[in-house]
């Protein structure tokens, strides 16, 4: 599973980084985010791209698990 570390990146870079990996036909990825705005934006994009999203709270923010539906 590919890990996309978007911590500390300004909007909309977390989504762009996620999109780049999704565009490579990856079906499972883990996205690390550290702001609620990034969490919401990445989740919204992933759902639109037909991925399921589950999030786990971490010390720095959240880890999002994306799986192709």
């Amino acid at each position, binding site marked *: 599973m590919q890990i996309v570390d978007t911590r500390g990146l300004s909007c*909309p870079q977390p989504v762009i980084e996620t999109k780049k990996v999704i565009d490579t036909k990856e079906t499972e990825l883990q996205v690390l985010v550290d702001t609620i*705005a990034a969490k919401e934006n990445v989740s919204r994009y992933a759902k639109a791209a037909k991925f399921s999203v589950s999030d786990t709270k971490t010390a720095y923010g959240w880890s999002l698990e994306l799986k192709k539906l």
Partner: protein
Amino acid sequence: MQEKRNLIVAGSLFGIIAVGLVVLGNPANMGFCIACFYRDLAGSLGLHAAAPVQYARPEIMGLILGSFLISSLKGEFKSRGGSSPVLRFIIAFFVMIGALVFLGCPFRMILRLAGGDLNALVGLVGFSAGIGVGAILLNKGFSLGRSYSQSRAEGSAFSMAAFVLVGIVLFLPMLLKASTSGPGSQHAPLLISLLAGLIVGSLAQRTRLCMAGGIRDLFLFKDPTLLLGSAAVLVTALMLNLTTGSFKLGFTGQPIAHTQWLWNFLGMGLVGYGSVLLGGCPLRQTILAGEGNSDSAVTVLGFLAGAAVSHNFGLASSAQGATTAGKIATLIGFAVITLIAFAVMRKQTRS
């Protein structure tokens, strides 16, 4: 779905508040204009000497404190910074110059449009074009780098400064300059303006509303969600202007506006271009500064510096149009931001 509903409700409230502030005394189509408010604030602090545009707009302090309070309450306040603060300052400096060549930030552009000012439509085309160019660069790997966790003192210092400024406005107003004529002299009652800022600041923090983000997301991800907020501001303000008789369709004779389409286009183009690279419009940067983002706080200082230089060196437009110095500064702005963009992209490919 809830996110979309919240954006529409917040945007509609912003439209109502913006028109209400004009009814209560703010300049026409300037219920909320982040660029104009920073320009007036810079004047009231004595950073520029243009007498008609000096007033410590309480809306600005309200926005920062509203965001600070609600983000602290909701556990979203987070001190962070260190993502190219100097480059952000420079980009913000030119965003402000672009806004003052057009005569308004993206928020006022929407309010001008809602008032029937068709020059704002030209501005909107330029703004969208600027966002488009910025979005291409983002796709190609533009990044100002990561921000890192900072001390709580660093993240809250900016909000504390806003708090002190509110105290000065309320109890020691003689320390600040205030216009006796012109746009700076036109304002809604102080406490109402402060309350309006607090409400808009809190709601903008909760909804992440951004006037540049909507168009950017549409270009990059075909996602219209954020755009709903701006659309709601436009529709609500338009309906209110139509019912109160303050709607006047046309290019000429519009309040605090000029008709030079090329400079309206390029001015807002520069605002869109810079805003996308900064990660949000001037309103969004103000909200992020309140949430503890010290890079956005530096961005706001860039806006203040840009406003001060604009008015001290004759870059800002007037109803007669853009000045020669303003036109040159706009073109320099495009060149500098493009240079910055390519410099950081080159660095990224090297590392």
